[in-house]
């Protein structure tokens, strides 16, 4: 038994030893200041994208003087989101901003939540639910923007392949439709869409296998944030840098590095900082009984930004400031 305790101590010590310092301060104030309005922000998985959104929620919380609980479902499943939302309601938050993982099948859960607290969807929408408003990217328009970028990358036309974690998320479907619309009538054809269930090694393998089966592919398109680095990784290992164009979404560090180095043609980035900021602000207003900023169509779109070699430096600098990595 003494051995067990000893090992436990060793492990605890190691754990304590390699924990990075400087925790973000938005969480952990649960109940410390009971007078403050408490709101919550629920993501759909764990990624850097949400770190930026968290910076936005923190800024809004500071400006408005409320508390924001930032919740990240570790496995990124719908069922996990449900239990998080239930717990948040029980703990007495007044408003929740959520990125529903599987909108069609979460309507009941969202309606149940909307009956008890102010509910907005962000990042991914569930238009058929009772949510008060949606704040996020118009992913169809983002897809169109990516499609335009693909046309720039392949002026002569060619064959392209899409990569994404799974096609059951609305944003993946919308982006894909947007790309299809933008490419309609051009001489660019989409060969196929390969999915990887968010397993990054699988994401790399999918690209490798595409380069083997379709050596003539002109452009590889990654629809989710990690697909960009995965494509870059596989293209580099296959020795085809520069031979095939890469267009992707979002702003992972490796993606930006790829754009800077000229290996990635361009990336369409959303503005998660504004997701976080606007969500908290809107929920705060709603909790005060002010619904004036909710438009009749119940949708607030946040623009996407096109990042290519021309503007990557400035964009990256600003990003580092937002995430505290400067």
């Amino acid at each position, binding site marked *: 038994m003494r051995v067990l305790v000893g090992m436990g101590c060793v492990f605890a010590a190691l754990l304590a030893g390699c924990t990075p310092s400087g925790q973000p301060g938005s969480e952990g104030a649960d109940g410390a200041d009971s007078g403050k309005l408490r709101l919550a922000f629920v993501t759909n998985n764990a990624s850097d994208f949400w770190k930026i959104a968290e910076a936005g929620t923190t800024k809004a919380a500071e400006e408005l003087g409320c508390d924001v609980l930032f919740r990240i479902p570790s496995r990124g499943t719908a069922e996990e989101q449900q239990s998080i939302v239930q717990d948040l309601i029980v703990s007495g938050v007044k408003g929740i901003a959520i990125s529903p993982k599987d909108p069609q099948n979460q309507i009941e859960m969202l309606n149940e939540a909307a009956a008890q607290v102010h509910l907005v969807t962000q990042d991914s929408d569930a238009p058929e639910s009772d949510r008060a408003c949606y704040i996020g990217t118009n992913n169809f328009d983002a897809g169109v923007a990516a499609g335009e970028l693909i046309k720039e990358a392949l002026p002569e036309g060619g064959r392209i392949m899409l990569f994404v974690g799974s096609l059951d998320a609305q944003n993946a479907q919308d982006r894909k439709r947007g790309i299809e619309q933008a490419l309609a009538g051009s001489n660019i054809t989409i060969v196929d*869409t*390969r999915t990887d269930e968010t397993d990054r*090694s699988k994401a790399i393998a999918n690209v490798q296998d595409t380069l083997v*089966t379709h050596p003539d592919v002109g452009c590889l398109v990654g629809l989710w944030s*990690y697909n960009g680095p*995965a494509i870059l990784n596989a293209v580099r290992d296959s020795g085809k840098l520069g031979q095939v164009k890469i267009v992707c979404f979002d702003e992972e560090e490796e993606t930006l590095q790829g754009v800077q180095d000229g290996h990635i043609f361009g990336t369409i980035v959303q503005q998660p900082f504004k997701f976080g900021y606007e969500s908290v602000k809107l929920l705060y207003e709603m909790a005060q009984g002010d619904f004036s900023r909710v438009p009749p169509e119940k949708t607030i779109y946040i623009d996407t930004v096109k990042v290519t070699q021309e503007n990557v430096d400035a964009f990256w600098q600003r990003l580092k400031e937002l995430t505290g990595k400067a």
Partner: protein
Amino acid sequence: MRKALGLIYLLAALVTVACLWEYFNKGGVVNFVSPANLRNVLTWVGLFGILSLGQAIVIITGGIDLSVGSVVALIGITTAVLFSQGYPPALVLPGVLLLAAAIGAFHGALVTKARMQPFIVTLCGLFFYRGVARYIAQDTTQGFGTEYTALKWFGRGYIPTESSLLPAPFAVFLALAAAVGVYLHLTPQGRRLFALGANEEAARFSGIRTDRLKILAYALCTTLAAFGGLLFAFKVNSLGPGDFGNFYELYAVAGAVLGGCSLRGGSGNVLGVVIGASLIMVLRNLVNILEIPSELEYVVIGGAILIGVFADQWMSRRREMGGAGAA
């Protein structure tokens, strides 16, 4: 050994069918055996195979280690975080391998001294280390950036030159497989491990220190998982704390079981595990090469493992009934 031979036939049959299918459906082009594809497949076989080797050792003792995927994540992410804080690799790498060995020994101690079931101990590990990895990474993606190219070579390089057919992780896998093979099949301690798996009580009564042996088996398993985790990290370079290594324990178990290790303990051989791990990655690759829809990947893998294990059972039963003549 007979089992391994059957598996080689299965692998050869699969490859042949795939090549023929491609040949007739793509007008004579066979991508599956192209150098580029072989390089890719062998890399993944090497990476996942290392996890299967460790898993096989534990399965032979009659246990199971479900924490492998989370250990992969914990070790990969801890390494990336420590590197980014400026600690030298010469210190970090032995440190994390030692940490992994300690985790395994801890599992082993819980299984033997505290008499807990391996499934439960390692299931808790699966949750625990995943959580620790996410905490250490603060839920942000970790990586090695563009540095540490020498170390990354072990995950993504080729031997002897960058255009060769032999991926470094596959070579590492073969070397580890040889070492584990010698240990399991040629040393007295390895044989004791089989005896322990077949009948623990009998092994104890015949003077084998079963507890110590089991603890060692779990420590070897997590150490190999950590080793694999490092190579995975060097290969993938973008480590999401929530998803890096997810499900890998099941690929490891599948490779070991398909390779002939019985979950009841006491049987299995390293050659089988090498081929079992290869089979699974070949299947995964074929889904893409034969352009089967991505959604069907798990159907193909699950179906193939079921058929493989069923055929193996059926053949060994026939062998037993038919006696020496049928072999």
